[in-house]
């Protein structure tokens, strides 16, 4: 009965086929830029980051202190407008030691690996993490559960971006 199992098409090419001009290709790029409206909640989040603070919103019903802040509680489905400053310290929920750039090119010899982590921020509800990167730490020494603190850019260099926090370092 196995003759019913058929596969057809999928002609494999090599990079050389294309580079040599044997196989014709066209190239294109989208070249459209986007200016996403940040909205009320993220706008305030970014403005506070510029001031060196992290702000969250609290749901009046379930009392969750939510990060990143949002204008509504997605679980209770009611609007939120109670703002709460939270600390710039937290706990590593999970992390990675990454040897490739975002475009999949490998980091160069001697260059430090990227250290992304999910950090549960103190003062927000349990489990409320944000993604950021770690610094001033030996990669081998990073542990889940480790306490960390934000290292801020100098005030004059902050632009109202998540990058106003340079990284989180161990406490």
């Amino acid at each position: 009965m196995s003759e019913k199992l058929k596969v057809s098409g999928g002609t494999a090419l090599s990079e050389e086929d294309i580079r040599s001009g044997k196989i014709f290709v066209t190239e294109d790029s989208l070249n459209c830029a986007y200016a996403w409206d940040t909205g009320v909640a993220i706008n305030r989040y970014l403005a506070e980051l510029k001031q060196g603070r992290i702000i969250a919103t609290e749901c009046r019903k379930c009392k969750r202190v939510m990060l990143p802040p949002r204008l509504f509680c997605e679980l209770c489905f009611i609007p939120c407008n109670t703002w709460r400053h939270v600390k710039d310290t937290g706990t590593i929920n999970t992390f990675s030691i990454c040897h490739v750039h975002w475009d999949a090119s490998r980091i160069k010899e001697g260059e430090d690996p990227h250290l992304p982590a999910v950090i549960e921020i103190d003062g927000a509800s349990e489990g409320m993490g944000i993604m950021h990167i770690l610094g001033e730490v030996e990669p081998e020494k990073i542990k889940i559960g480790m306490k960390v603190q934000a290292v801020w850019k100098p005030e004059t260099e902050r632009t109202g971006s998540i990058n106003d926090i340079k990284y989180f370092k161990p406490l």
Partner: protein
Amino acid sequence: MSKRVAIVGIGCSGFRTTSTDLSYREMIFEAATKCYEDAGGIHPQSIDSFVASSEDFMEGISIADEYVPDQLGAVLKPVQSIAGDSLQGLASALMQIKTGQQSIVATSAFSKVSNLSHYEKVAAYATDPAYIRPLKEHPYFIAGLEMNRYLFDSCSTREQCARVVVKNRYNAFLNPRAVYGAKITLEDVICAEPVSAPLGQFDISGHLDGAIVLLLASEEKALEMTDKPIWIKGIGWATDTPNLDSRSEGLGSAHYAKLAAEKAYKMAGIKSPVKEIDFAEIDDTFSYKELQHLEALQMCGFGEAGKLLEMGCFEPGGDLPVNVSGGSLGIGYLHEANGLQRVLETALQLRGEAGKIQLTGVETGLAFAWRGIPTATGTAVVLSNRL
């Protein structure tokens, strides 16, 4: 097909050319909240499933369906996205209810086209990469080709297309959701800056931001939830070939609209659309599209739409009011949300809640959406306030 399905909740927000005040999430939250309130104050936890419609490049996000659940209250719920016009999203929601697995399904769509630097480039990215894109032309050239061929085939005139613009933008004056209301003359339209002649600047509907959420329910739930259910009598969608070189009836026809309407009419049990449909909200992304679609949807014979328009048949007081809301030319074009916008206007008319643009004694309406340049896909839906 035993199960009947109705629209039981309507909510929208935005409908502005730019919307820096809210993020898309916040805008959808607002529309969803209004929709759920409209449906008797239902909590989203009681909704069985959710359908969104979007395209990645319009949002600048890959796999944009990731960001759907929160603002609809759909966390840990069945949620799926349709990469198509939101009327197809509506069809998907309808099918889910008809399977019997779901009873209440929300469907949503939004536009934040103001966040794009170049919509043209996104539309151009929809054309064939080997045969069309290397020409490096503005994608509306396809509309120019279609319009020219349509005028040739149907013996319609440039003036008749311009008249669509004059009518729809004037209609828009009375619709609070419309932002392109204007009193303009045929001459304004014809002499406007050409884009891809014969298509001019005012033949093209303007971009709009906005969010729409509709709630659908099975017959028994609908009757519990609202005293104004709008029944989905029939729906049909179809795709002609996406290739410009092999369209079923050449570039001048809207064959997809004909196929979609045939299916919708059959499901709705409509034999004579002209007699049985009281008014229509029909795609007018480009001026000529309204005429072309009217003919394909069997609202009149081929080549007659322009003449009937001149006679006033499609005016709010005419035999078949078309786009009394202002259409896309008058309201603005909401991209993926365009189809739901047509349903929204149709449903409000059928509920008798259309305010100053309310038509009298309407029972059955037709909404039709096209997928835009360069596609050949359309969806038609027949709605009624009678079971």
